[in-house]
């Protein structure tokens, strides 16, 4: 094997030889430099490979032929090789990326570039503290050189700030080192560690100086203004190197000198880390310039790493895994984002909308954003999971909370940015050229993230059982994205059908509860995909993301342990986010969906972590035996799940997200996706059924559910947008489900299940139909439609059946739910909550009538005289669902009886008894089949009666109405639809004032204003930054050492 010393030799040799080349030979000199970088990468990679596969032992490299402490020694071990490989790969890719710049600027820049990486390599390997200082200086100076790549005034002044700040920091480091030499009599780190200088008077100060200098190199908040300016001013290719490679080396150095500090260092580092993580991300919120935003994010991530290092005593042997997961995600993703910034070349994040002209780049950006935030299957997901679990196991609840808060804040700005990229207007933005040498490095790091993520997952036993085959299927679909939509549609349907075929029968045999949900998810998925045939063209990106959501949903069902559940949950969130943001005006709504989902997911994560505390297991069963903090745990998990069911207070994302989504996406995210929250809630309640704390929580939950039903329905009544109306209706319907579950009785749960199944069917019918109508008429506004019954009778019938079912009018299946609910409420004794729920149920008539009459009845508008019936591809799934609905209405016992058996496992008493088709409860009775027959026969008889009597009725044209003998003016003025419940609004509208939206907006304003105020410390004045550094040192010193 090639010795590590050759890394130095090659790099220096290359740098010195580059001086021979003339500018004319720039291609040759670049190739020369690239070769050196490649060779360095090769050496480190070779060692990494040896350490990973051949039980290679850590080696020491002595220089000058003497042993340490007399000479400088280098060390090559597993950790060194990992960091070296990471840094050198980034260096190699960065060099490729910077091809044009390096070539144009000449050999000096190439020298500086190689020397930067040489410095970083030695910094990692060296075991001599003064040598560390020298090569840190090399790295700093080389960085200062790279910053001025474009020689602009901003770059130069940022370079000056950088060099003077690092000058001060290395001065501090130097004082520390010389003092350590005085106290220890050695510069060899291994010797110094043995001496425990921290206990020597003065020695502690020396160690402190070294520690604080290394920390300052890592840019802790708030003493990091100089670094932010650098990130903003430097070429993004350089920013990538600083953020990914230099910061990684810095972290390694910190870990290297930490044993000198001893255990007392952990606390300082953890505290500094968490302040940096929170502070930096908070200020990132107000940032609208891309490079600087990336700077904030970089510093935030380093803060997280510092926190993790600081928490080592609690994380134990998991520290390395966690730190590695976070670091590798940060390094690769941040490098990728910086490089993308160089390609897109837009100062402000709104300008990133241009990126979606190149779908591949958009996908890469998405990869990086999701990797940074910690979504599966990226390494950061598993790292964060382990981190949170370990913190909970050690009872570090505050740390846990702070880390989640920081991650959440980071998610806000990253997803806002990503939203701009996907949805902001980009017509006026300038074109940007695409060069292969710039795209390849970005693609490689993205691929690396997926690959490393996969292997990281294998390292956790609970995650190793995750089935990755569906994800591979998605990758294939993604690769086939160039095909026309109908081909991908067919493949997707076949995929889901095969998936259903492999898993549904087993659930039918063994687990009726999961069977129902898996049918809703997969069969519902197939049905909604059928509607996809109505779309022409390629529908780029639609199928992969839809499948991600479905796979996530199924993973949730299949989950055997908490990690798997959370994996599926996050996957589902990611997929649905992309589905939602596809809508034309969905940017803000998708962000709000993402934020609520992310917040909810973090609460679930925290809940899981606390639940498994002390149980030595991650199985879902741990929820059964929560003992400590039960109230908090159950509440956390519950609120987490309630974000997905859009319960009152957490519902504000839903109307926009569902309302603005595409026509076949709305049913996916409404009829299907919302059930994930219901499933989570069911799992939680089943597990904690015996827990004493559940009683008080479900009581509150019951009220919440009932009020949600009321507010959701009332909100729906005042909508003018058909899809938003349905979205509000979903809020209300989910309120019923939550209410039913909260009753924690046999009948209550049956109610919830009935509503779950019903809502799936009729909301899918309604959303599909309305969506199809919208596709035909081109507007969501109901008052712009009217009289469409004549044009789309099939759509009308579908909506008619949908609303009869939804409203709970017998004999359709909605009544089943209402009847069960009434019985359950009375038996449970929740009279007032029940009354509210019924009030809500009646309000449903308002919006349902408005929906059907405004669209289908009344006067046909002039511009709709030529619209056609809705697409056959919508009619097929709609009518399949209608058949299902009818069967459920006519034979409710088919499903309710087995459901009753399941529910009886948990609530044995007070059930529903079946005598053939007759259902009885202790207080009521009802025969669904017979009532349907009676009503049907009667209806037919009366219809015949009317037909016989009025057989000569003459069909008249539009406008032939009783109108004082006049002719109405236009359809618009004759069709009463806009704001028809104005009077009702006057009486009860105060209930649906946007209190909750205002509350969340207020919260958002407070956070943003705080960020806006605090970030003024970054005045842009280099001297202020110096003052920050000195003050920081003094303050940290006096806080921790006196």
């Amino acid at each position: 094997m090639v010795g590590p010393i050759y890394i130095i030799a090659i790099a220096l040799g290359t740098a010195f030889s580059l001086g021979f080349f003339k500018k004319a030979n720039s291609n040759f000199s670049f190739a020369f430099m690239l070769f050196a970088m490649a060779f360095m990468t090769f050496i480190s990679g070779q060692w990494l490979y040896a350490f990973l596969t051949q039980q290679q032992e850590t080696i020491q490299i002595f220089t000058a032929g003497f042993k340490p402490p007399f000479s400088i020694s280098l060390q090559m071990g597993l950790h060194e090789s990992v960091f070296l490989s990471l840094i050198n790969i980034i260096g190699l890719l960065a060099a490729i990326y910077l091809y044009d710049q390096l070539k144009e600027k000449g050999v000096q820049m190439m020298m500086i570039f190689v020397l930067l990486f040489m410095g970083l390599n030695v910094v990692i390997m060296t075991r001599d503290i003064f040598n560390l200082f020298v090569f840190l200086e090399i790295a700093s100076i080389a960085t200062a050189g790279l910053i001025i790549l474009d020689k602009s005034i901003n770059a130069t002044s940022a370079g000056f700030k950088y060099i003077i700040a690092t000058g001060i920091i290395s001065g501090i480091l130097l004082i520390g080192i010389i003092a350590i030499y005085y106290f220890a009599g050695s510069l060899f780190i291994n010797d110094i560690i043995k001496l425990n200088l921290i206990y020597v008077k003065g020695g502690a100060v020396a160690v402190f100086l070294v520690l604080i200098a290394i920390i300052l190199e890592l840019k802790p908040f708030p003493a990091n203004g100089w670094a932010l300016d650098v990130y903003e001013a430097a070429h993004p290719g350089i920013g990538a190197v600083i953020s990914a490679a230099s910061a990684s080396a810095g972290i390694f150095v910190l870990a290297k000198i930490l044993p000198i500090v001893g255990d007392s260092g952990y606390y300082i580092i953890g505290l500094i880390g968490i302040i940096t993580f929170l502070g930096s991300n908070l200020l990132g919120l107000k940032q609208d310039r891309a490079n600087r935003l990336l700077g904030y994010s970089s510093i935030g991530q380093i803060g997280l790493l510092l926190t993790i290092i600081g928490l080592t005593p609690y994380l134990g042997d998991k520290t390395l895994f966690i730190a590695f997961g976070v670091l590798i995600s940060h390094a690769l993703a941040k490098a990728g984002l910086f490089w993308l910034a160089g390609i897109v070349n837009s100062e402000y994040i709104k300008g990133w909308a241009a990126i979606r002209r190149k779908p591949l780049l958009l996908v890469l950006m998405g990869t990086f954003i999701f990797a940074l935030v910690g979504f599966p299957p990226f390494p950061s997901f598993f790292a964060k999971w382990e981190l949170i679990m370990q913190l909970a196991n050690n009872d570090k609840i505050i740390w846990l909370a702070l880390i989640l808060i920081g991650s959440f804040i980071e998610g806000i700005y990253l997803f806002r940015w990503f939203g701009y990229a996907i949805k902001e207007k980009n017509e006026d933005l300038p074109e940007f050229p695409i060069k292969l040498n710039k795209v390849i490095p970005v693609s490689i790091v993205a691929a690396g993230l997926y690959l490393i993520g996969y292997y990281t997952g294998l390292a956790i036993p609970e995650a190793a059982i995750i089935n990755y085959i569906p994800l591979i299927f998605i990758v294939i679909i993604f690769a086939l994205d160039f095909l026309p939509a109908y081909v991908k549609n067919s493949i997707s349907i076949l995929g889901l059908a095969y998936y259903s075929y492999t898993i549904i029968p087993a659930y039918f045999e063994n687990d009726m509860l999961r069977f129902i949900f898996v049918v809703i998810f997969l069969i519902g998925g197939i049905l909604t995909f059928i509607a996809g045939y109505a779309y022409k063209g390629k529908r780029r990106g639609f199928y992969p993301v839809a499948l991600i959501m479905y796979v996530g949903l199924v993973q949730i069902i299949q989950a055997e342990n908490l990690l798997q559940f959370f994996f599926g949950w996050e996957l589902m969130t990611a997929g649905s986010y992309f589905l939602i943001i596809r809508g034309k005006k969905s940017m803000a709504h998708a962000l709000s969906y993402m934020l609520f989902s992310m917040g909810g997911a973090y609460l679930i994560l925290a809940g899981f972590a606390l639940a498994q505390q002390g149980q030595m297991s991650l199985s879902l069963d741990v929820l059964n035996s929560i003992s400590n903090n039960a109230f908090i745990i159950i509440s956390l998990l519950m609120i987490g799940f309630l974000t997905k069911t859009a319960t009152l207070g957490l519902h504000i994302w839903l109307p926009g997200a569902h309302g603005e989504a595409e026509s076949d996406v709305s049913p996916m995210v409404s009829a299907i996706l919302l059930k994930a929250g219901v499933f989570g809630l069911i799992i939680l309640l089943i597990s904690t059924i015996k827990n004493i704390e559940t009683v008080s929580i479900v009581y509150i939950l019951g009220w919440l559910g009932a009020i949600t039903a009321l507010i959701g329905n009332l909100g729906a009544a005042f909508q003018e947008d058909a899809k938003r109306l349905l979205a509000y209706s979903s809020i209300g319907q989910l309120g019923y489900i939550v209410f039913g579950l909260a009753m924690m009785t046999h009948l209550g749960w049956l109610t919830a299940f009935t509503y779950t199944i019903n809502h799936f069917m009729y909301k899918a019918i309604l959303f599909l139909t309305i969506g199809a109508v919208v596709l035909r008429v081109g507007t969501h506004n109901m008052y712009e439609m009217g009289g469409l019954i004549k044009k789309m009778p099939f759509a009308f019938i579908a909506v008619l059946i949908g609303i009869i079912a939804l409203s709970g009018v017998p004999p359709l299946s909605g009544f089943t739910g209402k009847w069960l609910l009434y019985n359950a409420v009375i038996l449970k004794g929740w009279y007032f909550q029940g009354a509210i729920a019924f009030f809500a149920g009646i309000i449903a008539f308002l919006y349902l009538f408005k929906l059907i009459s405004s669209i289908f009845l009344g006067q046909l508008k002039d511009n709709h005289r030529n619209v056609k019936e809705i697409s056959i591809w919508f009619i097929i799934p709609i009518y399949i669902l209608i058949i299902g609905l009818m069967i459920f209405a006519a034979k409710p016992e088919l499903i309710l009886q087995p459901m009753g058996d399941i529910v009886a496992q948990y609530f044995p008493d007070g059930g529903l008894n079946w005598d053939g088709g007759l259902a009885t409860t202790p207080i009521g009775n009802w025969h669904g089949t017979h009532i349907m027959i009676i009503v049907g026969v009667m209806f037919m008889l009366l219809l015949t009666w009317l037909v016989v009597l009025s057989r000569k009725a003459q069909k008249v044209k539009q406008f032939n109405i009783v109108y004082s003998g006049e002719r109405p003016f236009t359809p618009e003025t004759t069709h009463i639809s806009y704001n028809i419940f104005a009077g009702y609004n006057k009486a009860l509208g105060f209930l649906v004032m946007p209190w909750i939206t205002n509350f969340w907006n207020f919260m958002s304003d407070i956070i943003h204003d705080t960020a806006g105020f605090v970030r003024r410390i970054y005045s842009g004045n280099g001297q202020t930054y110096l003052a920050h550094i000195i003050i920081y040192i003094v303050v940290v010193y006096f806080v921790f050492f006196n």
Partner: protein
Amino acid sequence: MENLNLEIITLITGVILVLIGIWGLLTQKNLIKIVIGFTLFDTGIHIIMVSIGYVKNRTAPIIDQSVNINDVGNSVVDPVPQALVLTAIVIGLGVTALMLTYVLKMYQKRKSLEINNYNDLKW
């Protein structure tokens, strides 16, 4: 003044230089003066380094006529800080040269040496 030895005096001088240097860095508005502040800071550190390596009543670590070749260990001062300070001085020189170059470039672009005039990047 028994304990006011040579090394203590130089050490205190070094510390004072460091403090003066920081004072200059934090208060002077002129870029050149800030660089001078940095050099003072740096020089102070070098003096500290040398004083730490001093051993009472001994000579430079060069074996010549003044040093008994068989008793080097008891006749010279510590060579290590001297070696380190050599390196540190060179590094300081490089950094100072860079600072001055940047200042020169900034001055060429904006014709100002006031640090307050270079606040374009902020927040």
